[in-house]
């Protein structure tokens, strides 16, 4: 792409997409720089996929502007398509064709053929570690390998920008780690990555994060900055064997230094005012006095804390 170094790879301004009365994306504005891993976070139905589909030229925006590599997607979606790789949420390669058949087809669809194509396929199969599976039908591949194949397929025409829509949904944790190693490698090589996910742990891999809720972009920053702005207070994790956490929760809430308490699976995350010098000790004592057995531990805020905070603040 012949774009100046200063032009952002993606520029979105007041982007809105409505389906009838339902507004899937509501006046969203952001930019993504070259080589960045940009994470787009949000619950299902928050408008993540819709944004990706607009940026890939699959959907027309209702209003606002979306530029990819300086090209307005509404003006020339076909040119946009040539310069991006897209991996959809659902595995969408041909299950009845082999790994190489699939790659040959999608390569051909991008106008590649002959030796350059077969060399490119070899390189990619090496990169995603699928050389040994080249003749396997994709329907027989385990989830993690399918994901890597889909990635290879999106990379065939060496796009400088890659859209990944929930790339790791339904894949086991070790395969997810592997996948993210690949993504980081790509990013080091200069590929810009735009990835949606609802796994908060994955979001930690991203350089910048946009938080989506009900079509609105509610926060946009680096993971560290997001944590600092949204959760400035220390957090203490409280775990207990008790089946009912409610009495503990009530006791904690009654404490004047506690800002708020949230349930996180089997534990509670307690946010305490900054001024408090020894928050964990004091809370431990307080719970003990009230007759509860609990394990307390100071923790770093997670992006999930940030997400919940951002959504409730909105």
């Amino acid at each position, binding site marked *: 792409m012949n774009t100046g170094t200063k032009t952002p790879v993606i520029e979105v301004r007041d982007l809105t997409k409505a389906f009838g009365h339902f507004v899937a994306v509501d006046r969203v504005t952001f930019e993504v720089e070259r080589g960045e891993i940009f994470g787009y976070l949000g619950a299902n139905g928050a408008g993540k996929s819709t944004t990706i589909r607009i940026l890939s030229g699959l959907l027309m925006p209702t209003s606002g502007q979306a530029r990819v590599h300086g090209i307005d997607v509404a003006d020339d979606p076909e040119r946009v398509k040539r310069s991006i790789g897209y991996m959809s949420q659902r595995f969408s*390669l041909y299950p009845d*064709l082999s790994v190489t058949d699939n790659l040959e087809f999608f390569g*051909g669809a991008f106008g*590649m053929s002959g030796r350059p194509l077969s060399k490119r396929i070899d390189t990619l199969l090496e990169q995603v570690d699928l050389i040994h599976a080249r003749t396997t039908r994709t329907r027989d591949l385990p989830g993690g390998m399918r994901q890597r194949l889909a990635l290879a397929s999106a990379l065939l025409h060496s796009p400088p920008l890659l859209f990944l829509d929930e790339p790791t949904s339904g894949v086991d944790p070790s395969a997810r780690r592997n996948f993210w190693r690949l993504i980081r490698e790509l990013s080091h090589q200069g590929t810009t990555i735009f990835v949606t996910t609802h796994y908060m742990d994955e979001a930690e891999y991203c350089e910048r994060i946009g938080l989506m809720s009900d079509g609105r972009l509610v926060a946009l920053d680096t993971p560290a900055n997001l944590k600092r702005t949204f959760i400035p207070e220390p957090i203490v994790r409280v775990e207990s064997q008790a089946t009912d956490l409610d009495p503990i929760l009530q006791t904690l809430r009654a404490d004047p230094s506690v800002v708020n308490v949230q349930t996180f699976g089997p534990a509670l995350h307690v946010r305490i005012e900054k001024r408090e010098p020894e928050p964990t000790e004091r809370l431990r004592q307080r719970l003990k006095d009230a007759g509860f057995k609990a394990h307390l531990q100071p923790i770093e805020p997670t992006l999930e804390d940030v997400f919940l905070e951002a959504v409730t603040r909105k």
Partner: protein
Amino acid sequence: MRTELLAVITKELRQTVRDRRMLVMLLLAPVLQLTLLGFAVNLEVDHLPAALVDLDETPTSRAFLQAMVADPTFDVAITTDDPDTPILSGEARVVIVLPRRFEARLKTGRSNEVQVLVDGSNPIEAQAALDATRRFLEQRSVQQMASLAQEMAFRSGRALKRPSVEIKVRTLYNPSLKSAVYMVPGVAAVVLLIVTTVVSAMGIARERELGTIEQLLVTPLRPTVLLLGKMLPFAGIGLITAGMVLGVGTTIFRVPVRGPLSVVFVATVLYLMSTLGVGVFISTVARTQQQAILGGFFFLLPAILLSGFMSPIENMPDWIRVLAAINPVRYYVEILRSSLLKGAGFAELLRPLFALLIFGAGILGLGSLRFQKRIS
């Protein structure tokens, strides 16, 4: 553009070849169907289960029975006293009742009334049975008259004069009136129709069902290229199938090839345009493969019934004939029969060929337009 088209064609062919069931459906099934249908759909009446009720029981009536047994039209299962039961039980389709005093009346030169009962629950078969019985009885009465006349001539000692008018019917094109020869072109049209329409309708619906359409859409592949790449392989396979069906028809069923093969080829190409076009059109309406199959049959049934493949269109009510006039199957059947059996060439078949072209171009254009809209 050529690279892209080639990529789609290669992909379609690979998918078809790797899918054993699909390959069988495309290549083997039509030949099997043709063979089965060709043998099963037989409008000739041979070995009709028949029964004779002989109320006369004389040498003449027994000779009548002998003649009936000897005639290949009938399979005389029983002689009985009760004419109704064999028809009710299905043992006989025809019952002939010889009256009392059959012999006596014959001998004295008076006419006899022979009662014929025919099972009318299947009208086509009943008609054929009735014709066969009438023919048999006419033959029989001519013979009777001849022998009677001979006997009388012998007694009177005068020479016998033959009747002066003799009717000789010569049937053209299908002299033995074999129904297979007539049926095979129809069956070929139907088999090609089923295979190509359903396959092309399902092909596109499958992409939608699998979600692969999503991945296709982010490629710069143009809808026209995609559509062309999807149809060309199936048009090719359709032509191979048509060739095989024709081969089976000419070898097993002895269907003649009197017209130029180029007519058959051109007609088949035009016909495939129609059938694939209908398939594409259906696939723009159907969301799943199941809907595509159902939609396919929604078109197939009337198209087959109104093709003149089994029953002549001329006998249908006016409003149905209007429908039949826009039925591509009908024109293809017409062309195949005229060309194969009668040796008609391009000059004689301009009208149906033109009709096929119009329908094919129309539905294919409409289908592609809808396809392009649906896909973007």
